[in-house]
């Protein structure tokens, strides 16, 4: 799979699995609960990249919604022009861009909505949807050729 080294946490979703064991149930929480998004001081968070931050276990960054997906977007670096359309419109903060470059997809947070594919302007598209279980190398190998006329992207 992708190895982007841009994620501050591995073990995502762990706290979801453990939630039943060491967290208070909904009926045990006193009204007015406070969840810290970060461990320690959060000063200057706006200027820190995800991989530089110390997310707390309460931050949904440490959780996963990967199981929502039945199809997934696959990214083809060779065609991408780094326009960042996919970055600005992804509703799930799942496009990993650094220094004006699109690097890949955060598959723990992507829900497979296909918005990024729709807004990708290249021909052929630099993002296409594949079955969730499709192999990345095989998906890339089966990438369509440049199309004469912009037709709707086909699902592989």
């Amino acid at each position, binding site marked *: 799979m992708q190895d982007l080294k841009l994620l501050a946490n591995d073990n995502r979703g762990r706290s979801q699995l453990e939630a039943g064991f060491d967290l208070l149930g909904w009926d045990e929480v006193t009204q007015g609960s406070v969840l810290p*998004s970060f461990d320690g001081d959060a000063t200057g968070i*706006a*200027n820190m990249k995800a991989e530089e931050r110390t997310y707390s276990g309460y*931050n*949904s960054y440490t959780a996963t919604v990967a199981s929502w997906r039945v199809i997934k977007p696959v990214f083809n670096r060779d065609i991408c022009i780094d326009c960042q359309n996919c970055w600005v419109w992804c*509703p799930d903060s799942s496009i990993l*861009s650094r220094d004006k470059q699109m690097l890949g997809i955060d598959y723990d947070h*992507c829900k497979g*909505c296909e*918005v990024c594919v729709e807004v990708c302007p290249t021909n052929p598209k630099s993002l296409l949807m594949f079955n969730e279980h499709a192999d990345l190398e095989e998906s890339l190998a089966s990438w369509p050729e440049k199309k004469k006329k912009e037709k709707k992207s086909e699902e592989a």
Partner: protein
Amino acid sequence: MAITSIKNLKEFSTNNDRFEGAHTLCPGCAHSMIVRELMNCTDDNLVVAANTGCLEVSTAVYPFTSWDTSWIHIGFENAATAVTGAEVMHKVRKKKGRLKDNDAPVKFVAFGGDGSTFDIGFQWLSGAMERGHDFTYICLDNENYANTGGQRSSATPVGATTSTSVAGTHSYGKKEKKKDIVSIMAAHGAPYVAQLAPNKWKIMAKGFQKALETEGPCFINTVSPCCTEWKFDPKDTIGITDLSTDSLMFPIYEIIDGHELNILYRPKNVISVEEYMASQGRYKHLFKPQYRHIIEQVQKDVDAKWDLLQRREEARI
């Protein structure tokens, strides 16, 4: 304030998200596109409040929060009240030199759905606007009470079927016209009021920055297409937003100091209301012969509104 560069998308994309994934909004939901833009258009500290609704329930699912800023939820109707209370406290503590960093710039923002903004939280919002706090209120207008299963609100347009304005043999859907919230907020004498849309990301980011920079109460209505209740394929959220702005169902404009109206986007090719409606299941019944006249009626209203906006812009009133 520390506004971030929005010269082009590449520059904009160097911002570090302060709104995290693994929230539970539907795939393709426009709410999070809008929120991400707001959070990315400034480096200032943000204090955010949210009314009850899809955004709130989906981004604060115990034990998780998707917000990398101070964020509070109290009730359905009172994000404006909560955030303006915080704004006053901040002002006082700053004056007394009691803040950890007295010079750190802080902006106060409230989010509400159309149900909480146009209807149930209306007087709370109006009160906060009248008191003149320094804050920005952003309405995520998906034209229905989406979080409770799609009831009609006073933002629902004529002809839309909702779970409480059901279309059928005796009804064409909602009969009452959409409330003109932008004019109402401008009438409060607010220094900055606008209607913006996520497909026009740059206009939206500029508008957000303007609102955050402007001292006093600012209000922005944003179009937030809801694939679940408008009934369209989640991948089409931006395409549907294009149709909404290009059909002038959602004209993009600002009103400064209650009177100076500027149109911010003029579609090169205006498309028909019919084409807009054909893209969504909530208007499907209007294409039956007995209800087709409703499409024409809405088109007339849209034309009249566009004409009025242009004349107001020209006359500077």
